[in-house]
């Protein structure tokens, strides 16, 4: 196990979510779930982050923001789409201003289903994200 799997720092961005998944992401940080046990820190700063947690789907206006944040994150990095909206657009896929899931604009490594995704699912998703991070690091190193 390398340092990467022990220190995944996350960046959370709310695409156009209903808040449900956002508050569950925040709930993961709080005493009952406490993801800091895995070394996870919610950095709030793309330049420090390893895992990009996106909730909500992509609309015209936040395409640039999501790509920008993703671009600012230094390699290696993974994207975890949290909740039905981020995975596929969910119930809002047919709203006129919605383009669809996060994978329309950036590559997604882990999809966390649910509406809203439960904290347990989010933790599972982050753990899978760590595995993906480790693979990317190995690829980079070789």
């Amino acid at each position, binding site marked *: 196990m390398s*340092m990467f799997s022990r220190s995944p720092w996350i960046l959370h961005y709310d695409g156009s979510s209903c808040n449900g998944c956002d508050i569950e992401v925040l709930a993961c940080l709080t005493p009952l779930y406490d993801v800091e*046990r895995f070394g996870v820190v919610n950095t709030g700063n793309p330049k420090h982050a390893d895992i990009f947690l996106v909730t909500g789907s992509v609309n015209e206006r936040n395409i640039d923001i999501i790509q920008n944040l993703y671009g600012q994150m230094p390699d290696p990095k993974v994207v975890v789409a949290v909740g039905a909206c981020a995975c596929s657009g969910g119930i809002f896929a047919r709203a006129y201003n919605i383009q669809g899931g996060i994978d329309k604009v950036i590559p997604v490594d882990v999809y966390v289903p649910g509406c809203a995704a439960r904290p347990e699912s989010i933790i599972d998703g982050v753990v899978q994200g760590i595995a993906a991070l480790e693979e990317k690091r190995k690829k980079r190193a070789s």
Partner: protein
Amino acid sequence: MNTAIYGLLFVVLAPLFGGLLAGVDRRVSARMQSRIGPPLLQPFYDVGKLLQKKTRQVNPVAGPLLLGHVIFMAATGALLLGGTDLIFVAFVFALAALFLVLAAGSANSPYSFTGAERELIVLLASEPFFILMMAGVCKVSGVSTFGDVLAYPQWVAPQLPGILIAFLIVATIKLRKSPFDISTSHHPHQELVSGLTTDMSGRLLAYVEVAHWYESAILCAFMVLLFNRSWPIGLVAFGVAYALEVLVDNSTSRAKWQLVLRSTWAATLVLCGGNVLALFVIGR
């Protein structure tokens, strides 16, 4: 050349000490928030990861400046234990901190820049304290190097009560603890995102972390200096001070910069200035 070896030992061991301290801090803080918290060695994992990550250079000067920040932090401790004049050490300490301000100020992000401005403010607030502390220690002991003060047969602390109290206040700034963590914070949920370090990534951020470990170790050495007759007591005193900082960190909100400036200046002027002035008046 015993003292030079102490200096070298500091350069090697201080990061271990500082990192471990940060690990204990994070775990204790988590427990105070009724969480379990990260593993004890988490700060080392973080820095190890940052060193492996790709570094994005925002400009050509930030890297060298941050390297300077680490080197001068290490040098401060090395010079202190290596037997350099105490006042000089205080100046090098300030210089080391200035490198960080310059590095953050060189980035073009407004958060980073505002963080640098705030760091400069707290630097102005805290540096006079260290100079006055050194002046006080020199005045009491009559000698001017770390080794000589430790060899001085009497306690210096009882004659420096004001400085001891002010130390607690200024250490809050230096250890980046709430309520005085206005320029950057370990819990990055503030108006300036991550303040000073907003634009730093990968290796550069690792430098800042390591420099901070040195900084904690230097503060510990200062505490030992104040409790000159027995270094275990000095260590315990630092431990108590650190525990208090963690407790206060978890029990207060972040202050605004005006209050930080006012309270540190008040502490420096009234407590330290008064203490040193009293020494001169009584000593005469």
